[in-house]
């Protein structure tokens, strides 16, 4: 239990750190396509951490688990496309 909890703690720390970076980007008013790309990369990393280690899908063999990852990547890529078309 302790090993599993420690791993979850590290994931939590990474998620909080990435959230603080996202907040700082907003606070400092950074904008533009490169910033959007960086934020979307951060969303992808955070989302996949939640999927793999909080939902526990990294430890699952079922093909159904890919639905969540495909959802995340599709949403992130299409949001990126929408922002790119508006530049």
């Amino acid at each position, binding site marked *: 239990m302790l090993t599993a*909890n420690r791993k979850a703690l590290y994931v939590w720390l990474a*998620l909080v750190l990435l959230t603080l970076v996202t907040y700082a980007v907003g606070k400092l008013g950074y904008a533009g396509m490169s910033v959007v790309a960086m934020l*979307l990369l951060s969303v992808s990393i955070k989302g996949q951490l939640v*999927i793999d280690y909080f*939902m526990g899908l990294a430890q699952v*063999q079922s093909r159904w688990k890919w639905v969540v990852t495909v959802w995340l990547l599709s949403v992130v890529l299409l949001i990126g496309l*929408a922002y790119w078309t508006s530049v």
Partner: protein
Amino acid sequence: MKKQDLPGDFAIWIFIFAELLVFGIFFLAYAFARAANVELFNEYQQHLDRESGAINTVVLITSSFFVVLAVNAIRHNAAQLCARWIGLAVLLGGVFVYLKLLEFGSKYADGITLSTNTFYMFYLSLTFFHFMHVLMGMVILTVVAVKAWQGAYSAETHTGVETGASYWHMVDLVWIVLFPLVYVMH
């Protein structure tokens, strides 16, 4: 060793996939509507309470972390510890709800409604839709916590805990996309 099946009841995963699809469509509708109204979205996004959004992100992430600890506890037959971690997760869900109500109240006091403009239509409907999911997740987790406290789960039989946990992580996952999209990106 890898497990064969998704954690929890498979029915909740069908529900989760459907919810993710709806939120995904909502997010893309927001992003493409913004592409057609960049100046409007950029201007009114600056009026949002970014601090509240960021705090709520940390609150939900921490709540999800507590749920992971609860699942780990029941896998080691620690039912009371499992119930306590879920109880703390629900408490943080309450903090999220409280902060969100303050945010909604502030917008309402400023006379902002769904029909104020396209940005606020998306902001209010997206965040309220998610808010309702937080409330539903809190109800599910409360039921799981009570059952865990009463000894309904064990290391061998804890599908209910994993089912509630999976739903709560979905609520967290959706917010992880929603916060930067609506509050930060421009």
